[in-house]
């Protein structure tokens, strides 16, 4: 730790002034999702060196933080470093508000770039340029209630690993009492968010085509996802809803697809035999990488950029990354963190914490990076509701959503 502090000091020797440089950092981590740990790590940075003073600000959840940054951009008072959710940094890259990191990395030989997980770095890659550093990255896991598995005659040590197995297990877990379904296998989110990435990818499809000039999630793969969901509903294997957590912890829903970031909380909450496993596969295995990343905003002079970069390096260190990952369930961005005693201990006590690293390293994919993602998210969310709740034909519902997404693609390609 001391050597890092020394390196930071040396790297910043050319900006040495009597007054420390002030940088403002915005994060979106909730109280149960690493906020105290992140703030502790950031405050330690202020203790180990004198050149830079970091002020950490909780900017609200992912969406409020993005809106706050939009307002700050319009008003010309952006902070220096901002955490954006995976799909929400693109608008700011599009607005030329973000500093490209490649020059900083190239000019910094002591920064061990190769140690960062390559697949996590892809989430910061906009057309070959690196605009952020992965930080609180996650993938979804399949959490399940092993007590209910046993009750339904299923083997809790052999959880479903394919769509067909998931369908079979979820059907076996269903319990119907007259007209009421009192227990079901899995929940289907009416606003699927990144789970749409997961299912679509597993079906072999993608949101955008390879050239990135057309949205294709309404193709046969998207329709296959919708039809799979409808089969689960028809067989009582699933219930379409939004607040699944309560049903899962009340023992009404046997399985839930949720972020690995919930790992610590879920295991602390469950009063039953809670287990977790990797996402099921279908045509292929596919795990979307969610969570947030840190961006250096293009404000201030080179000295402030260097100070922001020094702070980024601090939070990305092997030890600090391991500490944050162990406390939350998010993935430490560096491969070397996995060998750090903090994470080694965590994995020994909670083997499930390793799952996200395994599926990320073999088949983790970035989300779609377009400046108008929120609206695409709304569009396929509305289509999902139409399919799951209103019985509208999947090809038609998804077609409408893709049309809206493609319209925006044209709007944004105007110059």
């Amino acid at each position: 730790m001391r050597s890092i502090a020394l390196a930071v000091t040396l790297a910043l020797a050319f900006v040495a002034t009597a007054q420390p440089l002030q940088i403002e950092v915005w994060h979106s981590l909730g109280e149960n999702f690493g906020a105290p740990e992140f703030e502790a790590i950031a405050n330690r940075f202020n203790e180990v060196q004198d050149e830079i003073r970091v002020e950490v600000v909780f900017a609200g959840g992912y969406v409020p933080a993005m809106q706050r940054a939009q307002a700050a951009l319009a008003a010309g008072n952006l902070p220096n470093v901002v955490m954006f959710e995976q799909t929400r940094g693109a608008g700011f890259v599009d607005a030329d508000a973000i500093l490209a990191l490649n020059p900083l990395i190239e000019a910094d030989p002591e920064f061990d770039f190769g140690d960062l997980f390559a697949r996590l770095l892809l989430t910061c890659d906009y057309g070959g340029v690196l605009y952020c550093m992965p930080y609180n990255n996650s993938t979804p896991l399949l959490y399940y209630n092993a007590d209910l598995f046993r009750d339904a005659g299923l083997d809790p040590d052999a959880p479903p690993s394919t769509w067909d197995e998931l369908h079979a297990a979820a059907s076996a877990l269903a319990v119907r009492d007259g007209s009421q379904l009192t227990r079901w296998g899995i929940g289907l989110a009416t606003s699927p968010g990144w789970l749409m990435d997961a299912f679509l990818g597993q079906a072999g499809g993608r949101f955008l085509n390879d050239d990135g000039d057309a949205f294709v999630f309404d193709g046969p793969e998207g329709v296959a996802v919708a039809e799979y969901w409808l089969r689960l509903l028809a067989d009582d294997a699933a219930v379409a809803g939004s607040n699944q957590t309560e049903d899962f912890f009340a023992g009404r829903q046997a399985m839930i697809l949720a972020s690995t970031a919930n790992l610590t909380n879920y295991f602390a909450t469950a009063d039953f035999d809670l287990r977790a496993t990797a996402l099921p596969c279908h045509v292929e295995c596919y795990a979307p990488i969610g969570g947030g990343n840190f961006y250096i905003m293009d404000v201030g002079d080179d000295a402030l950029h260097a100070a922001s970069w020094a702070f980024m390096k601090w939070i990305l260190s092997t030890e600090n990354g391991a500490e944050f990952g162990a406390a939350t369930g998010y993935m430490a961005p560096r491969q070397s963190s996995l060998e750090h005693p903090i994470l080694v201990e965590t994995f020994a006590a909670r083997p499930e914490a390793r799952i996200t690293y395994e599926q990320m390293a073999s088949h983790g994919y970035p989300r779609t990076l377009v400046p108008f993602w929120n609206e695409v998210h709304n569009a396929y969310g509305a289509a999902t509701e139409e399919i799951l709740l209103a019985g509208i034909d999947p090809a038609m519902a998804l077609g409408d959503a893709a049309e809206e997404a493609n319209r925006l693609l044209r709007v944004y390609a105007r110059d």
Partner: protein
Amino acid sequence: MRATERSTANERRPPRWAALDLRRPAARRRARASLTAYALLLPAFAILFTFQFLPAFEVVRLSLTDRLLLRPDANFIGLANFERLWGDRRFWNSVWNTVYFVGVSVPIQTALALVFAIALARAVKGIEVLRTILFLPVVASLVGVSVVWQWMYHPSVGLFNHLLGLVGLDPIRWLLDPTWAMPAIILLVVWNGTGYYMVIYLAGVLDIPSEYYEAARIDGANRLHLFRHVTWPLLAPVTFLIFILQMINSFQVFTSVYVMTGGGPVRSTEVVVFYLYQRAFDSLEFGYASAISVALFAFLIVLTLFQQRFFGSRVSYDR
């Protein structure tokens, strides 16, 4: 003193501009007084101008451009946004949802507010407590209330379905059911807003002189007659005020939709202001969102003028 001034003025009527002739001491005094008045108004006007009027004009300007929120460059595109609005199915769906919301929530709120106001307009011990209880929901933050009600509407652990179960009814999926989501929001808004209008009505009811009721009773009027021929006509100005306030508020319904449904399910609660919000902050089409805003503004102005002409003329302010 004013009378003598007027009588002298009658003898030799000064021209209108004479009031501005600063050589006359009276005019100078008057000019100074109005200058003081304007100076006192200035801070409030400056704030209103900067934060209300200027943005309003800016919205009109933006509505004629293809401005995207995070891109400073924008082209003037004339009325193209309004043309698009005219053919936008989602916009008309949101108009229909808003009309549904207003059409159901306004009469219910008005009727309930009136009923409560009349019921509470009597000098009974402890009546203030009841009035306070009915007014309490108004004080609660709509965001907080919406979050709590979201839980009460939860299909399996929510309070409402528990209550339905007690009387032997099948559970409703409330916010997840395209048929029930809007009634669920209306129920919340009625609960949250009625107390406010009740207080206005209460003031109106208590303001009616008791002589009218005495006279009517002597003429043999029963309770229904009293309401029909005394209370209701004398409350007309209050009803008119409440109606206009509610119309303007209800057409701008947003918070509960934003928190509870996000416009869903299947766009069944996507009201105009929420659709506007999505255009402004999700697809970031600020120009188009401004056009929606201008259309809503124009509609509300027309509606208010219409109400004033066809409803306002029947309101009697005389007693």
